[in-house]
């Protein structure tokens, strides 16, 4: 930490110097109260904003993450978890800035007996801590909002999960897995990753629904 030395000034003070010195003191008066008041306003405003965002996310669009294709469902889940963490820390920091730490503090920690005015130093430290908590809380709240919007947007516009698949096994040992559709003439077609083929039911041994096609079956 930088050390300082006090020596005689080269010129005498003037009335302008006195005004500057007085301003230095006056702007620190009530600084903690200003931080607290600002933190309460930010807390209320950001709380309303986040509540509005959550409400907006429920208005329309897909609401079930389980309807998303993989890996988008996991991405949305992770994003929501990150939003929850950011929102939780933000709430904690904003409450700490607005109301102080919910803990008892030893007087020895607060009152620096080595200075002529221990109260000034204690107030300065608490003001700085509250001020930093407010700034970090606001940043985290905006981060939480961004993550929530990202999660909602991905849920709405992400690719949907494929529907149930059908696995067909033929007498000759061939296995196909895909979705069953009908063509323009009404004939059943089997759509697989390898292509679409007519579905010949005469030689099928088993036909069962599966959530996902096993690798290698097409």
């Amino acid at each position, binding site marked *: *930490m*930088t*050390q*300082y*030395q*006090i*020596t*005689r*000034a*080269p*010129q*005498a*003070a003037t009335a*302008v*110097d*006195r*005004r*500057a*010195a*007085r*301003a*230095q*003191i*006056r*702007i*620190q008066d009530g*600084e903690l109260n*200003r*931080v607290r008041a*600002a933190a309460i306003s930010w807390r209320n405003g950001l709380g309303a904003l986040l509540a509005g965002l959550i409400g907006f996310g429920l208005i329309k669009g897909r609401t079930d993450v389980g309807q998303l294709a993989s890996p988008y469902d996991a991405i949305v889940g992770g994003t929501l978890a990150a939003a929850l963490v950011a929102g939780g820390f933000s709430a904690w920091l904003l409450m700490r800035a607005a109301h102080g730490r919910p803990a008892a503090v030893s007087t020895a920690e607060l009152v620096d007996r*080595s*200075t*002529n*005015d221990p109260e*000034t*130093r204690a107030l*300065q*430290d608490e*003001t*700085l801590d509250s*001020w930093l908590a407010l700034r970090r809380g606001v940043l985290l709240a905006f981060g939480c909002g961004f993550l929530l919007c990202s999660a909602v947007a991905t849920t709405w516009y992400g690719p949907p999960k494929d529907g149930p698949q059908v696995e067909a096994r033929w007498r000759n040992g061939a296995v196909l897995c895909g979705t069953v559709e009908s063509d323009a003439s009404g004939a059943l077609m089997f759509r697989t990753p390898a292509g679409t083929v007519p579905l010949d039911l005469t030689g099928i041994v088993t036909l069962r629904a599966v959530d996902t096609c096993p690798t290698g079956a097409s």
Partner: protein
Amino acid sequence: MTTSTGHQGVPYEEITEDAYSDAFAHGARAIPTRRGVLLDGGCPRCAGQMSYPLVDKVFRSPLPPGAQVPATNSKVVAILCTCPEDHPARPDGERGCGAYWNITLSATT
């Protein structure tokens, strides 16, 4: 009136003298804080023990018109008496005995 701590209850007066700077610098300490420097010493006029906090930044606040905030890296810093003792004729909202003076504050490391 002189108290047991050496403080003299002189009437409040906004005053400066050339000797104030030297007198304050002789016994004062500059204590580094998380926000700047705390100048600890005795007022050269009333001998009240005082602390004068110098900070670089303050939380957003409307400054009085024309006010200047001296930065802690300034060489010459203006300070005034902030002793907590009583002084007759002190206006409301003011502190100390009214004395003010300049000092030179220089970083040593």
